[in-house]
């Protein structure tokens, strides 16, 4: 009985901290419409700062708390809102999610830069772990009592805020109809800023409280993911209800402690299971959540992608293979294999192009699906031993197939629901896989067959051999991976141009309209998710064989998030976006950091500067992702648009090509080194459109380009005087005609207003 009570109290305490974290999440989601994936990272950053003040610099605990909770927490939230989140109105859900993922990664990179991950840091319980009270044999620590009291106070406080105070009511309105709120004289942005400040403070508080409960050691990745557990709790309240979120958090906390208490500790996977429990619960909640109403094209989003024709895509595919071949000639052997590794990442990134770019759905753990393929291929696809070991095509196909099926099974529970839930389900799967499968080094016996999923913690994946084509050779590997990328890329563009692709686009743009045409949305989402998982599986098998020996770190959730973020930043709607995103996340940053480290080693005087630049460039990756909020269609889109104007400036294009050929020739001849080639090529690519515009301006100064009418209709008569033509245009827009058509009930029903257009739910 005492054991039971002790664990119940421990469960309550854990639940209380989850509740604090989850309520912050629900708060920001409901006032700004942004599901903050960086919530856990904020908690992590807050806990590290608290450690720095209270332990690193030895400040008194109360002072450290006042500074972290009273200043840092709100400031962090306020800054996030002002600098990043405010700019996310009118963007697709995908953009919103990716930007918060970028913030998460940025915070993790930042913390690893400031606080070296290999140093041990301990945050102790308030008043020490020996300060405790005893009730009839049950021992409770003071820290635990503090957790319970704080959670209860927050629960009551939030309840009062939302039901009794004016600010709270306005907060509830902020997400439903910001325009209406504005009309009533409130400022929705101020309300959102306030909620971000509160949410961020709650995250920080949760981070400080939970670290000692989990053992006290501060570890950036673990802490970031630990608070992701709170997502499961928030799901109980359907991301809306704070009381239900609290209830969910308590259930979660108690289940976790009971598993620890009553599952036999001899089972090696008990502790892994306990860690994965929130994710498992999240899945269960997803399955039982009731179907939501179908939504329409919520808003006119800013994302725009142009779809090339298949013929044009094929030309670009051939060009890519040619360029890679020419570049290969410049490279030493190690660079070739690094490049090949990057190309395999680009193939994985293609899985995101079809899923997110074409269908508007999200997979936050692409590498975890890749891990499934790798495990399958390791067990069933290797022929031969030692140096003669090779992957065989059938094994790879089997792996791809299994990954597609696993992908389908993971996605299925979430497909009835909104895209956000699928994103959460994939993240849950990723964390689950890292905890349960990739750590599973022990032997199992099932039906008399003994096996272990991840023997010795790493898998040796030999190169692939297809008939006479042996990928042991680095050059062959690179060219094969490039050709594969080009083939899949062109295939995807063909898919996008087919009836299937149009159905995907329709589903992405308006699920409701698409359903009303007879489209079974679940079936379509399932099929595209399986295609995507299959591509991720193929890419990952190649990636694993490029690395040679893979461990669980290679399939880390964070690495998958970075891949997604960079692909979106480059342009998720484009195959070329996958190429750049994949190359950057696969090898780009490794190369940059390695280069700066080399420079640091070569110039010991400047070593700190070089190392700082190296770290800064890693943190700045996150800035790329955050930049998605500013240009949601991606960098590739912007580059393509800037080159579009060059089509008429043929001399500039030809000149650029000749110059580039000359650079290549010089480099191939060994007169110039590869770095200069890379830098000059980058300059040329960036300068060409600018140069083109200068030339164009001289040849045809603004001729035949009448300035289009830009004053929005509601400002006609205010910003510019009425003319007869404008009046006619207005009449046309409003559906009025020259003479009166008699009274219409329009008297009661005004014409579509801006507010209406901004916020469209199908269900009125």
């Amino acid at each position, binding site marked *: 009985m005492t054991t039971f009570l002790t664990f119940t109290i421990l469960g309550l305490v854990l639940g209380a901290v989850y509740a604090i974290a989850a309520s912050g999440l629900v708060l920001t989601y409901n006032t700004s419409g942004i599901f903050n994936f960086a919530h856990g990272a904020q908690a992590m950053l807050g806990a590290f700062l608290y450690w720095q003040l209270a332990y690193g610099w030895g400040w008194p605990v109360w002072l450290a708390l006042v500074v972290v909770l009273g200043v840092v927490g709100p400031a962090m939230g306020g800054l996030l809102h002002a600098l990043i989140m405010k700019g996310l109105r009118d963007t697709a859900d995908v953009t919103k999610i990716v930007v918060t993922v970028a913030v998460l990664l940025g915070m993790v990179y930042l913390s690893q830069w400031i606080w070296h991950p290999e140093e041990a840091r301990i945050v102790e319980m308030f008043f020490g772990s020996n300060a405790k009270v005893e009730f009839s044999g049950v021992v409770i620590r003071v820290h635990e009592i503090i957790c319970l009291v704080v959670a209860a106070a927050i629960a009551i406080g939030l309840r009062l805020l939302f039901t009794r105070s004016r600010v709270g009511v306005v907060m509830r309105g902020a997400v439903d109809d910001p325009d209406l709120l504005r009309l009533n004289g409130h400022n929705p942005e101020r309300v959102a800023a306030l909620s971000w400040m509160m949410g961020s403070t709650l995250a920080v508080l949760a981070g400080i409280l939970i670290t000692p409960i989990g053992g006290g050691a501060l570890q950036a990745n673990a802490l970031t993911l630990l608070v992701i557990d709170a997502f499961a709790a928030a799901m109980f309240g359907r991301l809306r209800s704070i009381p239900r979120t609290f209830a969910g958090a308590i259930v979660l906390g108690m289940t976790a402690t009971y598993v620890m208490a009553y599952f036999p500790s001899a089972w090696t996977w008990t502790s892994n299971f306990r860690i994965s429990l929130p994710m498992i619960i999240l899945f269960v909640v997803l399955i039982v959540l009731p179907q939501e109403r179908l939504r329409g094209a919520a808003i006119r989003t800013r994302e725009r992608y142009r779809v090339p024709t298949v013929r044009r895509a094929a030309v670009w595919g051939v060009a890519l293979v040619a360029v890679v071949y020419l570049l290969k000639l410049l490279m030493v052997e190690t660079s070739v294999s690094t490049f090949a590794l990057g190309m395999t990442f680009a193939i994985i990134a293609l899985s995101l192009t079809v899923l997110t770019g074409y269908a508007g759905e999200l997979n936050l753990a692409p590498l975890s699906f890749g891990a499934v393929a790798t495990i399958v291929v390791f067990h069933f696809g290797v022929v031969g031993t030692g140096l003669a070991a090779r992957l065989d095509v059938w094994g790879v196909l089997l792996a791809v197939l299994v990954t597609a099926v696993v992908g389908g099974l993971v996605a299925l529970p979430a497909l009835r629901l909104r895209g956000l839930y699928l994103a959460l389900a994939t993240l849950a799967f990723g964390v689950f896989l890292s905890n349960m499968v990739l750590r599973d080094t022990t032997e199992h016996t099932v039906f008399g067959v003994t096996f272990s999923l991840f023997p010795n913690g790493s898998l040796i994946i030999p190169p692939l051999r297809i008939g006479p084509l042996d990928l042991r050779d680095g050059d062959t590997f690179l060219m094969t991976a490039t050709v594969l990328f080009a083939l899949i890329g062109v295939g995807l563009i063909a898919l996008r141009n087919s*009836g299937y692709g*149009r159905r995907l*686009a*329709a589903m992405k743009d308006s699920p409701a309209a698409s359903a009303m045409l*007879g489209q079974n949305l679940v079936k379509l989402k399932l099929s595209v998710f399986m295609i995507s998982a299959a591509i991720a599986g193929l890419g990952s098998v190649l990636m694993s064989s490029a690395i040679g020996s893979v461990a669980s770190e290679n399939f880390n959730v964070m690495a998958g998030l970075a891949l997604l973020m960079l692909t979106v930043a480059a342009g998720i709607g484009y195959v070329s976006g996958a190429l750049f995103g994949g190359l950057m996340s696969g090898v780009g940053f490794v190369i940059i950091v390695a280069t700066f480290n080399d420079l640091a080693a070569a110039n010991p005087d400047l070593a700190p500067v070089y190392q700082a630049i190296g770290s800064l460039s890693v943190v700045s990756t996150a800035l790329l992702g955050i930049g998605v909020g500013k240009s949601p269609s991606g960098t590739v889109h912007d580059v393509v648009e800037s080159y579009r104007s060059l089509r008429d400036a043929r001399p500039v294009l030809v000149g650029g090509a000749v110059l580039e050929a000359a650079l290549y020739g010089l480099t191939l001849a060994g007169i110039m080194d590869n770095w200069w080639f890379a830098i000059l090529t980058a300059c040329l690519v960036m300068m060409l459109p600018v140069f083109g515009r200068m030339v164009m301006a001289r040849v045809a100064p603004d001729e035949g380009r009448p300035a289009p009418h830009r004053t929005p209709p509601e400002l006609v008569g205010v910003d510019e005087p009425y003319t007869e033509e404008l009046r006619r245009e207005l009449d046309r827009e409003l559906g009025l005609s020259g003479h009166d*058509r008699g009274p219409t*009930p329009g008297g009661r029903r005004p014409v579509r207003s801006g507010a209406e257009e901004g916020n469209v739910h199908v*269900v009125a």
Partner: protein
Amino acid sequence: MSLLETQGITVRFGGNTAVDNVSVGVDEGRITGLIGPNGAGKTTLFNTVTGLQRPAEGRVLLDGVDVTRLPPAKRARRGMARTFQRLELFLSLSVRDNIRVAGDILRANTGSRVDVDKETDRVLERTGLGDIADLDVSDIPTGRARVVEVARALMTSPRVLLLDEPASGQTEQETEAFARMLTGLAEEGLAICLVEHDLPLVMKLCATIHVLDYGAVIASGTPKEIQESPEVIAAYIGTEVTA
């Protein structure tokens, strides 16, 4: 018996009854009007009929079959099609592809060998959208965008077509052409239900009109009967009804 029928449909949002015990029918080969002031429950009724909204009570019958529990896609496959008051076009597709995708869906569902491209051209011509077929759908004026929604619905070869304020935003010439097209469609046997605020248009086109106010049907009948109904006048002009 009508092709499409609602029997005692009631929809509540919290304590608010948006649609109150509504029983109406839509017949083949005729245009049935559904009018009423803002907030009368017209769009909610459409959403319930098409399956986007679940009713608290009542049934929806299509050709005598109870479809109340079916999801929207299954109702669509049984011949129901609609347009949206707040435009729901596929913004990343061109006008042509907005219409073509309906054929793509039909083809994928039935496995039929319909020539989608040819059918799309036919619908484009029929609805008079040929001149803007290759424009981005986000670049066309509202009035024509409404016609694109109708064209897209027609592409599914529906038996019942539910139109939610299709004429708002159209110029007078566009409305005239639109009226001719609707009449033609009805003559071919299509059952059309028209929600519209342009009363002269409704009076001109509809055989039967139902008037909704505060979620309930307050009058049904021919255009003439409706125009003379004291309840309708009261609902629109807002005087007290003295019985």
